């Protein structure tokens, strides 16, 4: 590389680093505000580093709202959705990828139409359906409509179709039934796609605000995003360090998970685009 090119490269790196910093800074601002004493949040110019790290906002949030209950509900809902989805998605993907039966393609298309139809389209009839099933204001009402995933079926079916038929035939020759084939051949070989789907689904449902907002009202079944959002709509006026402390409690788990599974997320983009 000659000198001007190297200078251009350095300038480019600086610009890119500045862009990344600008994007990441707001996340830092959540954390900093959450640890500032209240008067410091009204100060001009704002302090970029708290004069004193104050644990009171977090403590107040934890004491005034049933945060533990919110966490519990969110964990139960997401765990319920994930376990049901993995079961139904793997079974359906196997049927569509491996088995031959009349009407298979038609049924597959029937499973594909909902693929990009978000929960925001049919929430009115779904609300009425859940109401007549007496599932409003229940955790089951937050889980059951998501017991399967069109996107998951599509992705995992692609992965299963990539598995050579000889593996399946070999397992069958040793007397393995469908469930054994799924357990010993399909799941181990399709694992990257299954895990990737699971990660995306986890992130989506952990963050979901819309469905619980529509389908629940009672505090005992409130999930974390809804609970955190209520900190902003307090009647006594907005207390920013508490709002950000609550926000921190919502963001932190997902960022930790992100750090742990980042390779799967990045790989997910490659897998889904191939």
């Amino acid at each position: 590389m000659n000198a001007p090119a190297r200078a251009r490269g350095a300038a480019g790196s600086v610009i890119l680093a500045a862009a990344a910093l600008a994007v990441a800074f707001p996340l830092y601002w959540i954390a900093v505000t959450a640890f500032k004493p209240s008067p410091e949040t009204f100060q001009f110019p704002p302090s970029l580093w708290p004069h004193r790290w104050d644990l009171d906002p977090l403590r107040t949030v934890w004491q005034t709202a049933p945060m533990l209950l919110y966490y519990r509900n969110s964990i139960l809902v997401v765990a319920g959705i994930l376990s049901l989805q993995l079961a139904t998605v793997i079974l359906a993907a196997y049927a569509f990828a491996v088995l031959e039966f009349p009407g298979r393609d038609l049924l597959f298309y029937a499973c594909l139409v909902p693929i990009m139809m978000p929960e925001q389209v049919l929430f009115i009839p779904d609300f009425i359906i859940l109401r007549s099933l007496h599932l409003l204001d229940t955790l089951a009402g937050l889980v059951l409509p998501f017991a399967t995933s069109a996107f998951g079926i599509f992705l995992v079916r692609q992965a299963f179709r990539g598995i050579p038929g000889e593996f399946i035939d070999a397992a069958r020759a040793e007397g393995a039934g469908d469930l054994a084939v799924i357990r010993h051949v399909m799941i181990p070989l399709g694992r990257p796609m299954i895990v990737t789907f699971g990660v995306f689904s986890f992130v989506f449902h952990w963050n979901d605000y819309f469905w619980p907002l529509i389908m629940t009202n009672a505090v005992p079944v409130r999930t974390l995003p809804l609970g955190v959002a209520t900190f902003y709509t307090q009647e006594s006026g907005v207390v920013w360090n508490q709002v950000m402390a609550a926000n921190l409690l919502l963001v932190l788990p997902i960022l930790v998970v992100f750090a742990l599974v980042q390779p799967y997320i990045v790989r997910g983009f490659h897998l889904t685009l191939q």
Partner: protein
Amino acid sequence: MAPALLVFAVFFYFALGFNIYLSLSSWNLLSPERHFVGLANYRAVLTSPRFHRTLWNTILYTAGSTAASMATGLALALGLRRVTRFARLLQGALFAPYIISWVSVALLWLWLLDPQYGLVDAALTRLGLPAVNWLGAESIALWSLVLLTVWKAVGYDMVTYLAGLQAIPSTVYEAAALDGAGAGAQLFRITLPLLGPTIFFLLVTSVIFSFEAFDIVNIMTQGGPIHDATYLFVYFIYVVGFQYFQIGQAAAASILLFLILFVLTVLEFRFLQRRVHYAS
């Protein structure tokens, strides 16, 4: 397979049919009275000034956030193509906003854009620039929502481009360099054409995501500040259905949304299938 089909049958296909039926009825959700009104709900929605404003807002929001995040995402992806630890670190930072919830994004930006104590206006004032009433001015509020949407989405676009870029064999560039193609020619003659499918995929998914936007409106502006300035499609359905209890009109608006998204989904699926054929 049967359980999956059952879920779709109830919460999608039955719901869709039920929604069509509701869209042809007059009902307030609570009373037992429900009667058939034909297409009156569609007529009411399509002639309502609020719906016109909503549709226009949704188009502006979708066009603005899609164009800005796709362009910025492409620039970042091209800049961070090389596989170095530095690039990977910056990629992680840029992608982080994408995985946090819209609730977090809404609360955070309410605070950043706060007219009295917010960081953004403080920075502007410090630089000698006039402060901006980000969410309180009718002409600006929608663009503030675009701004934070771009902030959240740009990492997703970047990572998708990076996946597309990785599929371009380096031999193509080597051959072009031998033929004397400069950086500009390589970008416009090789990179962008070969990224075509990725760009198309991103375009469709971004448009779909934009049409789904709801949380930021409900938490940050409730459609305001005035004159329905930030009403977006889903928020319109929500208000009509769950605040005015005009279930028929809300259902009619849902069907319109469904049709828009259905067309987009068909486009997207065509694309996915073609890509799959390439790979296998």
